[in-house]
């Protein structure tokens, strides 16, 4: 199979994320962060941040919703369970902090295939409440014919 190339450039429903201290703390513990700026608002403020800093991988919270939206689209041609995350790219203007109100419109970038392997780029340009760019993300989703584990 391949992803449907007619979908290049298609935009999906906006995804929003209110970044809470609880979500950031749970995420930071799960990934094993030990720098106190990721764990504690006071330490982060002493280090010059406006609030507790989210680990860079917190973007996963937006990515998962975007990918679920996109793979729920019957036009895509592959379900969520059949897809793996092949590549990930970020350009940060700044790191995310607790209190951020983030939003992004998931957009399909390039679609291509190599042999029996299909690739789709999902672009997320993430802005904050004042409309300033925070981070640009590109996730490359991969679908293998005949199962993900090969």
């Amino acid at each position, binding site marked *: 199979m391949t992803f449907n190339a007619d979908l290049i450039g298609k935009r999906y429903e906006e995804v929003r994320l209110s970044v809470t201290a609880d979500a950031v703390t749970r995420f930071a513990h799960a*990934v094993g962060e*030990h720098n106190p700026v990721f764990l504690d608002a006071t330490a982060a403020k002493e280090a010059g941040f406006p609030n507790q800093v989210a*680990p*860079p991988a917190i973007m*996963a919270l937006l990515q998962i919703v975007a990918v679920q939206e996109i793979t729920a689209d019957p036009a895509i041609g592959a379900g969520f369970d059949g897809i793996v995350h*092949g*590549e*990930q*790219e970020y350009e940060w203007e700044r790191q995310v902090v607790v209190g951020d109100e983030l939003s992004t419109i998931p957009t399909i970038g390039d679609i291509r295939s190599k042999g029996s392997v299909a690739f789709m780029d999902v672009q997320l340009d993430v802005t904050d409440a004042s409309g300033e760019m925070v981070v640009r993300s590109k996730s490359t989703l991969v679908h293998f014919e005949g199962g993900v584990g090969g």
Partner: protein
Amino acid sequence: MTAARAFEDVRVGEQIPSLSKEVRREDVLAYADASTDRNPLHLDDDFAREAGFPGMIAHGMFTMAHLTTCVTDWVGDPDALRYLRVLFRSAVAMGDQITAGGKVLEKDDETKRVRLEVWVSIDGDGDGDGAKPDYAIRRSRAEVHLA
């Protein structure tokens, strides 16, 4: 505060301190909850086996997060991290020891950006079979902006 590493103290070719951890089932399950990524490949051994893996595997983003910890530990200031591109390769299984590392490729004196090659190796399950390390993330890039 944790002072960021100074641009002039970085040498092209230097390796940043590596960071290792054992991937524990409870951490991956906690990550599935914290990230809301509940793909059964990351929760269910039987489902993962049917997909061709030896058992449930860690999320790529879980492994990537270990790499960003390694880079931000080295640089001091998380906001210095400005670019990352990771290529996910081998799947990480429960009990695997993973090691994140990096090497300085170049420094741009004008932009004060430092470009690194970064990776996460899988050092095996400690069974001592002497197999070569595999890579969960390899041929990947990070950039930090230093003062």
